[in-house]
């Protein structure tokens, strides 16, 4: 029998959390659905006395919109490119870190540093590394090519406009991939190293006795035993990737693109916020719901694929 004093005490203790969750978590879920299904809903227009019909026009409008497809494309490219790269690199680094004794702690600290930075602030640093300053398109000359271009030129290559005017989409995406991978490494290394350190040493001792080559140890022992952690970093990587926004603001500013093509690198989250700021809450809600469904599908799909390969 549940003690009635405990009963009300429990609810008393829980009440602040529950009230706040109702207002700022539960209500938004319903309201988002409501606005998403009211055609063309806008808060200011609603105040001005406009009424809205029930329907799915917001969703159609989002899907038909070329720029939304572009946002989706950019988001997907960034996800597909950065998750494998950062996961592989993180795995290699974690395995290497795990195999050494001296300097392990120091290097571990260094590899974690990008995590404790502000993604917008360090984005500005990356931007200066790629930035061309004082470029004159006629003379094809610049004051500062940016350190990355300097390195390219040092090895005999030709400087590229990475983020400035006249830059290509591919160049922009390349910069984003570098930055996102750099930014995503620490978390992945941390998780994978944690996983490695909990693997029973006996497996390795057995492999040593058998004289199994290193590469084989990696693919046959380490990766399978690490698979739950790998699965975890891949799934969170994809979820994070689909919500990419502030890293792009860090590099390109709120224009979300090079100066001569604002919005070129806009992502799905960016699309939602743009719509929100233009008083098109219906559209924003529909966009957010579509994003939610995509993340859900990708996560379920990942789960399914991973279940086949993960050894718990």
């Amino acid at each position: 029998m549940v003690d009635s004093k405990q009963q009300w005490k429990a609810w008393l203790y829980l009440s602040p959390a529950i009230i706040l969750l109702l207002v700022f978590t539960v209500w938004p879920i319903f309201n988002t659905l409501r606005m998403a299904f009211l055609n063309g809903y806008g808060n200011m227009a609603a105040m001005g006395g406009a009424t809205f019909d029930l329907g799915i026009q917001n969703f159609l409008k989002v899907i038909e919109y070329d720029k939304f497809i572009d946002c989706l494309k950019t988001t997907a490219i960034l996800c597909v490119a950065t998750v494998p790269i950062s996961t592989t690199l993180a795995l290699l680094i974690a395995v290497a870190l795990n195999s050494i004794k001296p300097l392990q702690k120091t290097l571990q600290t260094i590899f974690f540093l990008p995590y404790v930075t502000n993604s917008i602030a360090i984005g500005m640093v990356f931007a200066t590394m790629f930035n061309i300053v004082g470029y004159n398109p006629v003379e094809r000359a610049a004051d500062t090519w940016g350190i990355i271009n300097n390195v390219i030129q040092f090895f005999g290559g030709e400087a590229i406009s990475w983020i400035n005017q006249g830059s290509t989409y591919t160049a922009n995406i390349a910069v984003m991939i570098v930055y996102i991978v750099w930014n995503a490494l620490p978390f992945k290394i941390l998780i994978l190293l944690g996983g490695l350190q909990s693997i029973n040493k006996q497996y390795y001792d057995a492999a040593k006795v058998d004289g199994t080559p290193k590469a084989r140890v990696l693919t046959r022992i380490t990766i399978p035993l690490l698979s739950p952690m790998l699965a975890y970093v891949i799934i969170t990587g994809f979820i994070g990737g689909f919500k990419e926004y502030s890293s792009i603001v860090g590099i390109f500013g709120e224009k979300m693109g090079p100066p001569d093509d604002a919005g070129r690198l806009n992502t799905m989250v960016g699309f939602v916020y743009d719509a929100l700021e233009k008083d098109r809450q219906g559209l924003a809600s529909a966009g957010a719901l579509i994003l939610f469904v995509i993340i859900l599908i990708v996560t379920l799909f990942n789960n399914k694929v991973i279940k086949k390969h993960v050894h718990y």
Partner: protein
Amino acid sequence: MLKKIIAIVLTVVMALGMFALTGCGSKSANNAFVVPSEGFNPNETVDITFTHTMGAKLQEVLNTYIEEFNEIYPNINITHQSAGGWSDINGQINTEIAGGTQPNIAYCYPDHVAMYNIAKSVVTLDNLIASDIAIEGKDEVIGLTDEQKADFIESYYNEGLVYGDNQMYTMPLNKSTEVLYYNKTFFDENGLTVPTTWDEMWDVCKKIKEIDPECYPLGYDAEDNWFITLCEQMETDFTSAENGGQYLFNNDENKAFVKELREMYQKGYFTTQELYGSYTSNLFVEQTDTNCYMCVGSSGGASYQMSNNDTADGTYAFEVGVASIPQYSANNRKVISQGPSLCILKGANTTDQQILASWLFVKFLCTNIDFQAEFSMTSGYMPVIKSVTENANYKAWLEKGNGYEYLVAKCVQVGIDGRDDYFVSPAFNGSSKAREQAGALLLKCLSTDTEDVDKLIDDAFQEALDECEY
């Protein structure tokens, strides 16, 4: 477990979401203000708020004149605050309208007002202006007298009418425009004449480029203004506020001038704020590796165009000349008008007395000669009434204007001289998008590398139009 949770969430959310959908009422709102027949009550205390973008110095001026206003109307309490910059104030007031906490009076651009008007939150001023109801114990009526109306510079006054429905939405407070700053010392040394048309401009650019091949002869700060101004000067279509707003800029004439600008850009004749990455006044003033000898910028920014005087003997590096911007044709002179207007906002809780009090204060600011003069001298903006020169201080200040330390005054004078040329583009729900897209499409067309320029331009126009109409 995971699947179960998802299933629960989805069903609950769907069910409640549908429930929530039903709760959507409608209320009607109309913004034509009817002046109550009993007029304004000068004995009852009224609190009104005013949001602007003034800096500290201008706020001092404002405070002085609020005191003066309170000598006439001690019952009106005015609190004012700065919202920061122009983009901030728009966002802030938008959200305040949604929350019902909007100020009574706000600084505004026409595009902003069109946005506020979606929520029917802007008070139209026609009835207030026309009202001849006297105010008890004061020697004024609520409305504007004929003399007051005639005193306004017409083009400024008419900015309140650009909303496509012939109603007056705003009053002009102080205005700025675009002017051409040029390095007069350099022009004199090289025997160059200041261009008055765009053709002359490109000739001058060519000559300057021969003298200094590394330079950008011209810096143009605002890409969107350039596009809109050229449309107006060439009498080609941009937008119309009729029928709730139309986007008309996607036409061959506009494409032709964009193409011409591209050619000039590719020759290295100019740069713009976005392409350069900062206000081009920096290039103009700094005189470092890359020079710039002409700069089209806001007349309100004259203090940023002053040449450096940190040379050893304290003299100025060069003399700055100010001229009206180049035209397409001398018969159709057009210069864009910018700078703050005032609008009166209302919400569900706004009383008639508050609206009347706000109007009286707006009227006071816009028609008070001393305020107009002092505001202009502090900000470098242009007064909106002609009688401002009756203020002796102001007259003396204007006469001091030169290309060195009194550049601001000189610049204001150029602005005043061009007062018949001002225009503003039509404002409607979506006009800010047209402006944004005009700037973006120009930028794209100027610098993108391509084999097929016409296709680039066609695509950029089409894309801009699609974006506007979305």
